[in-house]
């Protein structure tokens, strides 16, 4: 099971299909980012035989740009539209990954997306976990997509 590859394929499909934008994936990070500043994180939980989550971590200005691409309108600051768009981005990426994991025989159910944002916050990953975090870029924008299992 190549979790990084699943994340790359899912993220690129969502961007190409729904945002008409190509995203480039970098090498998975060797250490997990836990602390974020001036950012927004959208998280979708996974339940079933294996429990975990997929999270999209993005600086606020990048989240605004992603929302502009989704909605085709100018977005100046973090608002409910941005939070909703980032939640839906995480939802579609997670749904795509879920399909790949189910092909491997895993039974997974998804939660409704949740978002957190702030100037300085931590997204913790309790307990021992298997996972990866992949950096992506488009235009001059960078964001992270993470998957982990307990």
């Amino acid at each position, binding site marked *: 099971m190549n979790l990084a590859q699943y994340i790359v394929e899912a993220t690129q*499909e*969502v961007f190409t299909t729904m945002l008409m934008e190509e995203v480039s994936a970098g090498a998975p990070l060797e250490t997990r980012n836990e602390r974020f500043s001036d950012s927004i994180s959208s998280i979708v939980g996974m339940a079933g035989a294996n429990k975990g989550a997929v999270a999209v971590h993005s600086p606020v200005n990048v989240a605004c740009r992603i929302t502009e691409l*989704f909605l085709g309108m100018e977005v100046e600051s973090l608002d*409910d*539209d941005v939070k*909703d768009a980032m939640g839906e981005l995480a939802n*579609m990426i997670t749904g*795509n990954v*879920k399909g790949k994991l189910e092909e491997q025989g895993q039974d997974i159910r998804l939660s409704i997306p949740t978002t957190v944002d702030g100037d300085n916050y931590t997204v913790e990953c309790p307990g021992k976990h298997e996972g990866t975090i992949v950096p992506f870029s488009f235009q001059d924008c960078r964001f992270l997509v993470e998957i982990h299992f307990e």
Partner: protein
Amino acid sequence: MSKILIIDDSSTMRKIVGRALRQAGFEFEKTLEAADGQQALDVLRETPVDIILSDINMPNMNGVEFLQAKNDDPALQSIPVVMISTETGSDILNQALELGAKGSIKKPFTPDLIKEVLGKIL
């Protein structure tokens, strides 16, 4: 062409679906929206529509629970529903199809896919 109801807890997705419908060449007299199944039932009892596009994973009343409730209402049970969701090949989508959903569209989707699926119904 008539009226459509888009059910999704994401306002972003409701806007994207509306835009994709126009790009696919569908022009509706009225496009109604609801954020969950219960809100959709309330909308439908005020304004009947010709077709419904519904998400599956939603708070309050999800897409499967909405189908069950719609099927129990004689005034609503004949309205065709297409599921539009990240869920594909899953038990919950199969439940929706067993409850009478006329098709499914996987997110992410293209206007061409919407045209293909809705074209068989409208």
